[in-house]
């Protein structure tokens, strides 16, 4: 039995000993221990070192508020910066203190204490400037940061995130939360009860209280059992409500899900009503050397003796300004701790408090000025609060209580306002901003009775708002010491040069705050930022309000006017893994496949993201072939014989209704309504501020049915655009849109032998140019499949876009490959398609269309209808062209050296000089038709500069290139019409 373990009592399982390692040494504890309680039971006093000065630190708290002892956990689910008070002991646990070397017990960083007076708050703003910050930064970075950074994901298992819905979410399963859950649950409402502890009960776990005359934990056990019987209640322990978002969305982190393959689970809970029963957090008292190992929160000392049967000390002094520490003293005393004295800063001590303790020396109107000892507390120096003779009381534990701060974090995150309450000397919930109720200590109802009744009240109020009719609830009575406090923000201890800490984690002392105020950093936010107070991992749970108190005292302002701290999520740190759940990689970036994806893979296609989440083949390399050779081979097939590509991802929409023609005339720059059934037309779409947003071909199926195609990447955006116009601007227009992108896949057969290939497939459609000309379509069967063939061309060659249902796509594709085999047909990837369109000077969104060029710049003034009085973008393009800005116009570029490739995106400058650009290269490809590099560019006044030389400016040289028309193959378009 470890030295400080009580022989009986506690909620530990003495039949289940657990061996663990801390800072390399082996210890033993019990199931039910936390790492902190086991260390206390083993008499380990120095458990940590502080961040800046590397002062020795011990365990201060017993829960998430712990400011001092942060550990790194080793093993499968290694984690850093974890408060030792929140680590459940399990066999094989191995932990070490963060940020100390070689150990917490002997830390060489402690030399910082020697220079502490040279490094006050904000010292780094004043120094480390010469010769420059980089000189110091690496060593400062190394010194900062607490735990080691993780280098590997968890070895096994995964995280999960889920959605959940509840009528009432209750945060906290202490007396108030359980009471609320019972009432809400019994009504049949869907209840979501979440508690951060491994066991329900909240403060009742740590205190020896009675409910209805029985030990309070028996009532807790009954309540938990009753809730477990209710199908309408979800009850999670070891789970934290860490964020309260807009519209009553709350985030829960469940740390020990039942499913062993799930490491942690995140719940996004949408709640009708929320009850914050999050309890209260005891705050520190501020006096010199209040950080020494052995100085502990009174409620924590109480928790260690009651819940863990571990003695944090043998001889204790209790220092308080409120009543709650008296019950703690009584419990400690009952456990065998000698209470040497209670030091109470109040001159008059309420009878209720006194009633808890008898036979204990009480010094009313006294304060602890400082602690004595080196590596742990050996005694305390006590003095009357108004000055007077000091005396020393020896002890090995100082249990201190500065009062209770309602845990308003969630309430405040919800945007509820808080107000300073004089009687509690803390901030309490004021006006809720959402459907939020507060109950128990979180609402300032500190004592057991008031917690139970406010839990019941909150539940009834929440049920009432949910619309449930409910009678008053039967609330049990509990016995507790009435609460009373007189605030003590700091002990005035002139004569001691030691630091009195406000933020134990970040080593922020009263002197630091005073210095900040002296230098003019006098807003509370300035104070916090200048001193870093409250900005640690614990976010100042035990110390922040003391900072406000000290500032208020120094500036002689009421606390309310100094301002409360902004509470930001998360309440306690949450692993990013849990937040992400399984949603990574391809759920974040979903992928889409066409039906021939497996075929592409079999052919060795190089697949990549090609916009709108489609994974498409870029090219089909053959062994020992360079990228360029592959692309050239595919291009030659199209130019010289026949190729085929999968055009399925093109956005396709069927539009139906009497007003469709009118609608298309409004969204496209050219006239669509004049199309005859069976015909198609290329169109350009502008936003109303005159930017090109899409292009594509529209077919008229019959009088009232049209088929519109968009670029792959913009299909969703154009769908949104059209629906928005129709539903919000023109609700009277009769146009109905159905997305058929995945109803019509297509294989586009292109090249001089395209017709022969399609004929070989077998079709009932007359393919002769006279009966089936360019920009028209026919319906029939191809290769025995129902199909629609469209004569469009994105390559400049004779092309047949054969559209079939996806279920037939692979069959069609394989038959095309077979039919084209005599002509050496090749599958064509995106890379070759790019070359083919550049050779023809066809536009590409994202290349030539980059938000600056308009149709006129792109030699497409013809597509800007003069006949239509109005269409989207018309007025804006006209307005823009009336301005004085010089236009950058589309031209072709032919480098003087045919083998000189121009990098895509390369700027053009006058004479190639290092000065403001006059244009840019939008694309450059090796033209198989011209056997040279050719490029497209946007160039200032480019249309009037054909024949001149432009200069591509590169870092290491200039590429002169002749300016030409932006078309390098079949300028008259004879082939595509053939």
């Amino acid at each position, binding site marked *: 039995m470890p030295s400080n373990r009580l022989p009986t009592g506690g909620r530990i399982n003495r039949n289940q000993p657990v061996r663990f390692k801390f800072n390399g040494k082996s210890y033993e504890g019990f199931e039910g221990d936390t790492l902190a309680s086991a260390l206390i039971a083993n008499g380990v006093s120095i458990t940590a070192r502080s961040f800046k000065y590397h002062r020795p630190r011990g365990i201060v708290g017993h829960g998430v508020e712990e400011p001092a002892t942060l550990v790194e956990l080793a093993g499968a689910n290694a984690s850093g910066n974890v408060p030792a008070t929140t680590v459940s002991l399990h066999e094989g646990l191995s932990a070490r203190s963060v940020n100390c070397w070689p150990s917490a017990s002997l830390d060489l960083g402690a030399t910082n204490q020697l220079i502490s007076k040279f490094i006050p708050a904000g010292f780094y703003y004043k*120094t480390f400037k010469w010769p420059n910050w980089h000189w110091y930064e690496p060593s400062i970075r190394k010194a900062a940061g607490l735990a080691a950074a993780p280098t590997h994901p968890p070895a096994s298992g995964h995280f999960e995130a889920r959605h959940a819905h509840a009528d009432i979410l209750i945060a906290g399963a202490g007396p108030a939360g359980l009471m609320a859950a019972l009432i809400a649950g019994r009504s049949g409402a869907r209840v979501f009860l979440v508690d951060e502890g491994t066991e329900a009960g909240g403060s009742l776990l740590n205190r020896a209280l009675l409910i209805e005359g029985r030990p309070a934990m028996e009532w807790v056990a009954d309540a938990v059992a009753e809730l477990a019987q209710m199908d309408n209640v979800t009850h999670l322990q070891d789970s934290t409500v860490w964020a309260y978002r807009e519209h009553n969305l709350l985030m829960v982190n469940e740390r020990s899900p039942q499913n062993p393959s799930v490491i942690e689970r995140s719940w996004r809970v949408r709640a009708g009503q929320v009850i914050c029963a999050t309890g209260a957090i005891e705050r520190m008292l501020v006096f010199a050397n209040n950080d020494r190992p052995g100085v502990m929160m009174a409620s924590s000392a109480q928790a260690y003796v009651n819940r863990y049967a571990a003695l944090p000390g043998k001889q204790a002094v209790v220092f308080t300004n409120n009543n709650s520490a008296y019950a703690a003293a009584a419990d400690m005393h009952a456990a065998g701790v000698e209470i040497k004295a209670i030091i109470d800063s109040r001159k008059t001590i309420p009878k209720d408090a006194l009633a808890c303790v008898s036979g204990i020396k009480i010094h009313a109107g006294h304060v602890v000025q400082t602690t004595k000892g080196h590596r742990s507390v050996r005694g305390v120096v006590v003095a009357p609060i108004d000055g007077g003779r000091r005396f020393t009381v020896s002890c090995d534990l100082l249990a201190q209580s500065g009062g209770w701060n309602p845990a308003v974090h969630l309430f405040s995150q919800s945007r509820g306002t808080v107000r300073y309450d004089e009687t509690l000397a803390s901030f309490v919930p004021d006006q809720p901003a959402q459907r939020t109720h507060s109950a128990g200590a979180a609402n300032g109802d500190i004592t057991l009775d008031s917690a139970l009744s406010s839990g019941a009240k909150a539940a009834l109020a929440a049920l009432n708002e949910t619309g449930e009719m409910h009678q008053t609830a039967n609330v049990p009575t509990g016995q507790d010491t009435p609460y009373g406090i007189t605030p003590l923000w700091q002990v005035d201890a002139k004569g001691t040069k030691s630091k009195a800490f406000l933020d134990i984690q970040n080593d922020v002392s009263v002197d630091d705050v005073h210095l900040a105020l002296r230098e003019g950093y006098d807003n509370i936010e300035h104070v916090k930022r200048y001193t870093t107070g409250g900005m640690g991992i614990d976010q100042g749970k035990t110390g922040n309000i003391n900072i406000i108190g000290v500032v208020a005292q120094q500036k002689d302002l009421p606390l309310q006017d100094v301002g409360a701290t902004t509470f930001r999520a998360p309440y306690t740190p949450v692993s990013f893994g849990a937040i992400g759940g399984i949603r990574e990689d391809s759920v974040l970036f979903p992928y889409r496949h066409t039906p021939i994806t497996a075929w592409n893979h079999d052919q060795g296609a190089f697949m990549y993201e090609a916009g709108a989440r489609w994974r498409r083949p870029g090219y089909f390399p053959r062994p020992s072939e360079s990228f360029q050779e592959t692309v050239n081979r595919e291009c030659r097939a199209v130019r010289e014989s026949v190729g085929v590509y999968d055009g399925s991802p093109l956005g396709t929409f069927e539009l139906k209704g009497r007003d469709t023609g009118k609608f298309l005339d409004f969204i496209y720059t050219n006239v669509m309504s004049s199309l005859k059934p069976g015909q198609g037309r290329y169109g350009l779409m502008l936003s109303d501020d005159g930017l090109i947003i899409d292009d594509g071909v529209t077919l008229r199926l019959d009088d009232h049915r049209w088929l519109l195609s968009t670029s792959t990447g913009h299909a969703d955006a154009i769908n949104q655009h059209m629906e928005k116009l129709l539903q919000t601007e023109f609700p009277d227009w009769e146009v109905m849109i159905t997305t058929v992108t995945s109803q019509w896949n297509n294989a586009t057969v292109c090249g001089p032998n395209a017709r022969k290939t399609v004929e070989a497939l077998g079709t009932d459609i007359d393919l002769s140019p006279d009966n089936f000309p360019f920009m028209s379509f026919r319906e029939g069967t191809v290769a025995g499949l129902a199909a629609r063939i469209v004569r469009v061309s994105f390559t400049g060659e004779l092309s047949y876009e054969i559209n079939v249902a996806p279920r037939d796509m692979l069959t069609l594709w394989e038959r095309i490959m077979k039919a084209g085999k005599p002509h050496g047909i090749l599958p064509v990837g995106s890379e070759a398609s790019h070359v083919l369109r550049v050779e023809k000077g066809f536009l590409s969104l994202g290349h030539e269309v980059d938000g600056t060029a308009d149709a006129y710049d792109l030699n497409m003034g013809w597509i800007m209808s003069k006949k239509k009085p109005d269409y989207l973008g018309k007025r804006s393009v006209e307005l823009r062209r009336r301005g004085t800005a010089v236009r950058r116009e589309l031209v072709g570029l032919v480098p003087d050296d045919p083998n000189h490739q121009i990098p895509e995106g390369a700027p053009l400058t006058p004479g190639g000089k290092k000065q403001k650009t006059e244009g840019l290269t939008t694309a450059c490809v090796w033209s198989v038709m011209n056997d040279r590099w050719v490029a497209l560019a946007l160039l200032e006044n480019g249309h009037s500069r054909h024949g001149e030389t432009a200069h591509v400016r590169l870092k290491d040289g200039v590429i002169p290139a002749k300016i030409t028309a932006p078309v390098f193959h079949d300028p008259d378009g004879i082939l595509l019409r053939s």
Partner: protein
Amino acid sequence: MQTYNIFSLARNALTGHQNWQKAWRSPPLKDQYDVVVIGAGGHGLSTAYYLAKEFGITNVAVLDRGWLGGGNIARNTLTIRSNYMRDESIPFYVKSVAMYEGLTKELNFNMMHSKRTMVDVVQTYPKMRELRRRQLTMDIYGSTYEQISTEELRRRIPALTGGGPDARLPVIGGMVHTDAGVNRHDAVAWGYARGADALGVEIHQQTAVKSILRGTDGAIQGVETNRGTVRAKKVVVAVSGHTTTLTETAGLKLPLRTMNLTAFVSEPVKPLVDVIVNCPDSGFYFSQSDKGEMVIGGAPDMGQSFRRDIKQHVFEDTVTAMLSLFPAFKKLKLMRQWGGHLDIAHDASPIMSKTDVGGLFVTAGWWGGYKAIPAGGLTLAHLVAKDQPHPLMASFTLGRFKHLDFVLESGTTTAR
């Protein structure tokens, strides 16, 4: 101005740090100034500083409804860079980056400027093409951008273990911007405030401007505050998201809307990542602060907002993007998150301009405006003092909207 250095620090240590002067004064509010700057944030303070330093205009009041440095400068992700795309933008940011590098010495206040390089992790070919386009134009203005291989990228960022060949978006290469850096945002605000104060500029906190006052001729007369009327012939609005709220009190409409941008930090851990990591295809970026926290930013929330809060689904997008490339961060913990509101112009480029109201100037539309604070302040001070745009900002005036000549500059994670 009291000098800050190792010697003054040592001297003061001996007297218990009792003799430090206030970083800035709190003078009484006068009823008239030559220039009133609304907003004691980065741009407001730097504008006031340069008005005094470069143009000798010292009768300047900077008014803030809250605490100085409490707006977006207090809630950003610190990245300073000049990897832009267009001639209009690059030289402006090149200047700003250079000014930042000299700011610690100029203001005698350690900004902890860490020129630690930004590395773009590129996962799609179109993005690589776009960044190479930037590279070639940036070189004209002396801004650095170099392509590196995937192997080199992983050597520089060992924590980047995701994005392998089988990933949904495999890493295909990187771009290195050696000019980029991070520094300490509070120090920038405080350094400018202290510097401006030393030159005679008055900073008035807790002084909320309720409306902008115009005379019968339509020109600016001053502002109405919660502390009374303050007269000035020139008023500069530098209030980020609240620009339109204020200018509408003068009857001025601007092409701005206010949006929310959030950021978050991890727990502090020992040094792991030495560069600023930007992942434009995945939509997040981060750097590790000197304190050890990963400071992470992602995409903005859609919709107008003054709420300064995070949207859970937008936040999750950022987190999951990060975990896809940095799977070890699954075990890293979120420590704190926050939101800021900023206004975005119709073309997503900044507005530094005179307005139709004589004497009223605005600096707004800052979207990543932290990096622009020095050059923004300098060039706006030039405009206010000389009534002529500084050449570096000539493209960013409201005049561009007259003929819809947008400056469409896609940032690293956002586009119009």
